[in-house]
C-alpha cells in the first residue's frame, strides 16, 4: 500500500491578510472569535492525513465544515495559507504555473456538485475538454471521449447538449469529463448531492463499479453519512476546519471519537455498515474432535452453556453438540463424531449484519463465523445482531 496524497498541517484562511491570522489560530483562538475580531474565515485548521493509492477516501461533515476547501486545496483551486500537500512525493504547493497546469491536466480530475458543465458544448465536447487543453489530436480525443462515455453509460448521447440531459446524466458527463484525462486522482465534491435519492443510489453503485475496474485514488466529499460509509474505504469527519476522526466506517460507527461524530452517525443504518467480524466474539468454549465427550461436557458445564462448536485439529469447523446429546452419548457409548449436529448457520467475516438478521432470529444456535477454508473464527450471538438494530 503506497501513499498517494500526503497532507501535512494544512491551514487555509480566507480574508485580506490570511498570514496575519495564523498566530491567533495557533494560539488556539476559535473560528468564531477570529471571524468576529478580524473578519477572516478559517477554512482549514492544521489538517493532516494520508490517502493511499487506489483508496476511496471520504471527507464528511456538516455544511461549512471545510470539506470543499480541503478538496479544492488538493488541486490548488484554493491556495493553502500554510502546510504541505505531497502527491507522489512532490509538494504541489510549491509548483510553478506550468507544473501546476500539467498536474491538473494529467494527475487530478474534478467532479463538481452542480456539474460545472460547459453549456455551450455538446456532451462529447465537454468530455473532450481536458484532452483539448492538453493538445491531444482531434481524432484521438474523440476516440477517448467516446470510450469514456461508454464507461459511464452515455453512448448515443454524444452530440446532445447538457441542457437536454437529466441531472443524473449530467453528472455522468461530469464524471466522464474527469475520467477522460485518465488522472490518478479524482476529486469529487458532493457530486451526488444535487440528485434525487433514487438516482443518487444508482450513481453510487455505478461509481463503485467504475472504481472496481479503474482503481483510481478518489477523494470523495459528502455530507451524507450513509453515502460516506457506503463508498468510503476510510472516512474523515470534519468540523470547523478540523478533522475530528479518521477511520474505516465500522470504526467510526463503533467508536465515535466525540459527541459530534456520535450525533452525526446516529441515523446511519448500522446493519448495512457493520459486518459479522465487528460483532463476533471468540467463544469461551471450543471442543476439538480428539478431546472426546467428557471434555465437551465439562466445557459446557463450566461455561454454563447448552451447546458447543466442535473443530478438528486444523481448527476447521466440524459441527456442534448439545449438552443433552453428549450426556446421552456417554451412557450409550457413542463417539463425539456420531452426535455432531450440522443444522446451524455459518457466515463469513465480511457479511453485513443486515443479511444475518433473518437467520439470527429463527435459529436456536449461535451463528458460526468461518473463513474460506472453513476454519472457525468466532461466533455471533443472537443478541449482538439484535443489539445492532437499535
Amino acid at each position, binding site marked *: 500500500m503506497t501513499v498517494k496524497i500526503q497532507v501535512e498541517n494544512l491551514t487555509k484562511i480566507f480574508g485580506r491578510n490570511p498570514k496575519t491570522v495564523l498566530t491567533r489560530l495557533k494560539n488556539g483562538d476559535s473560528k468564531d472569535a477570529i471571524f468576529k475580531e478580524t473578519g477572516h474565515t478559517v477554512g482549514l485548521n492544521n489538517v493532516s492525513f494520508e490517502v493511499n493509492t487506489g483508496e476511496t477516501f471520504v471527507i464528511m461533515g456538516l455544511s461549512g465544515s471545510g470539506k470543499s476547501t480541503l478538496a479544492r486545496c488538493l488541486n490548488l483551486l484554493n491556495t493553502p495559507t500554510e502546510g504541505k500537500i505531497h502527491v507522489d512525493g512532490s509538494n504541489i504547493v510549491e509548483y510553478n504555473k506550468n507544473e501546476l*497546469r500539467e498536474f491538473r491536466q494529467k494527475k*487530478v480530475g474534478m467532479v463538481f456538485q452542480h456539474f*460545472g458543465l*460547459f453549456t455551450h458544448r455538446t456532451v462529447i465536447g465537454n468530455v473532450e475538454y481536458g484532452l*483539448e*487543453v*492538453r493538445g491531444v489530436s482531434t481524432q484521438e480525443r474523440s476516440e477517448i471521449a467516446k470510450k469514456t462515455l461508454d464507461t459511464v453509460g452515455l453512448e448515443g448521447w454524444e452530440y446532445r447538449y447538457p*441542457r437536454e440531459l437529466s441531472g443524473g446524466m449530467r453528472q455522468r458527463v461530469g464524471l466522464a469529463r474527469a475520467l477522460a484525462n485518465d488522472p490518478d486522482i479524482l476529486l469529487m465534491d458532493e457530486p451526488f448531492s444535487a440528485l434525487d435519492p433514487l438516482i443518487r443510489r444508482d450513481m453510487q453503485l455505478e461509481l463503485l463499479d467504475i472504481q472496481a475496474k479503474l482503481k483510481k485514488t478518489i477523494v470523495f466529499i459528502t455530507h451524507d453519512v450513509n453515502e460516506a460509509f457506503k463508498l468510503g474505504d476510510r472516512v474523515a469527519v470534519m468540523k470547523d476546519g478540523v478533522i475530528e476522526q479518521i477511520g474505516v466506517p465500522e470504526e467510526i460507527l463503533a467508536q465515535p471519537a466525540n459527541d459530534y461524530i456520535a450525533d452525526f452517525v446516529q441515523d446511519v443504518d448500522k446493519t448495512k455498515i457493520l459486518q459479522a467480524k465487528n460483532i463476533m466474539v471468540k467463544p469461551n468454549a471450543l471442543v476439538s474432535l480428539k478431546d472426546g465427550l467428557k471434555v465437551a461436557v465439562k466445557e459446557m458445564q463450566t461455561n454454563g452453556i447448552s451447546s458447543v462448536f466442535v473443530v478438528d485439529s486444523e481448527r476447521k469447523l466440524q459441527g456442534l453438540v448439545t449438552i443433552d446429546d453428549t450426556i446421552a452419548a456417554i451412557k450409550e457409548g457413542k463417539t463425539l463424531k456420531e452426535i455432531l449436529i450440522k443444522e446451524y448457520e455459518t457466515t463469513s467475516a465480511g457479511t453485513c449484519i443486515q443479511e444475518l438478521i433473518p437467520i439470527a432470529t429463527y435459529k436456536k444456535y449461535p451463528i458460526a463465523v468461518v473463513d474460506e477454508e472453513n476454519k472457525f473464527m468466532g461466533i455471533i450471538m443472537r443478541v449482538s445482531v439484535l443489539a445492532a438494530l437499535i
Partner: protein
Amino acid sequence: MTNFPAAISFKIGIYVEYFVKWLMKYYGNVFDAIGASILWFLLNIEKFLIWLPWWIFVLVIFIMGWRIKKFMAGLLYAALLILIGGFGYWELMMSTLAVVLISVVISVVIGIPLGIFITYNAKIEVFMKPTLDAMQTMPSFVYLIPALLLFGLGKVPAVFATTIYSLPPMIRLTELGVRNVPKEMVEAAHAFGSSKWQTLVKVQLPQALPTIMTGINQTTMMALAMVVISSMIGAKGLGMEVLIAISRIDIARGFESGLSIVILAIIIDRLSQGIANRYKIPEK
C-alpha cells in the same frame, strides 16, 4: 448678496485648450494618420455600398429578414428600403450606413478587449465605471467638440464622435458577459489545467457571446442615433438632410428624411437583435 461672488472663478477651459493644442502640436501627425486611415476605410465602404446595385442590397436584406426573423419580416424590410429609395435618399442612406458600420467595427475592436481587460482588473473598474456612465449620459453634442478639435470638419470627426458615443455599451456588455459566466464553469476550466487564454477563448467568451451580441446591437443603435448629430460637423448623410430641413423649416423634407432614419433604425435593430438571439444558450 444674491449674485454669485465674482471673486470665485475657475478657468479650467483654458487648460483643456492647452492640452488639446499640445496634443495637436506633438501628436498632430498621429491624429492625421489615424484620420487618414479611417477616411480610407470609410470611403471604400461607402463606394462599395453605392456601387452595389440597389436590388441586390434589397434582396440581401430580404433574405436576412426571412432567415433571421420570418418571411413577412423580410418582405416588410425590403418594401421599407424601397420606400427610402423612393424618397430619393438611397445614396445618403449608404453614406450614413458606412459611418455606422465603421464606427461599430471600431467599437467592437476596442470594446471587447477593453471589456475583458476590465473584468480582470478590479482596480481599473473603479475608475472605468463612472467614466462609462459619464460617456453615456453626456449630451452627444459634447463629443463633437474634441472631434472637431482633433480632426477638423468632415467625415472623420463624425466617425470619431460616433465611435466614442457608441463604445460604452460594447465595453459594458462584454464585461458583464464575461463576469457573469458561472463560477463553477470557470473553475472547471481551471481544474482541467486550462491557461488563462484557454479559459477565455474556450469558456468565457463563448459563454459571454449572447451578451456580447446584445452589446453589438446596442452599439449599432447608439451609432445610428449619433450619426444624425454628427452630421452637424459635416458628415454627408440622412442626418444632414434632417438638419437642412430643420434650418429651412421644410416639413415635407424633414418628414421624409426623419422617416428614413427611423426605418433604417428599425431594420438594423431587428436584424442585429435577431442575430444576437441566435447565440442565446437556452437554459433548459
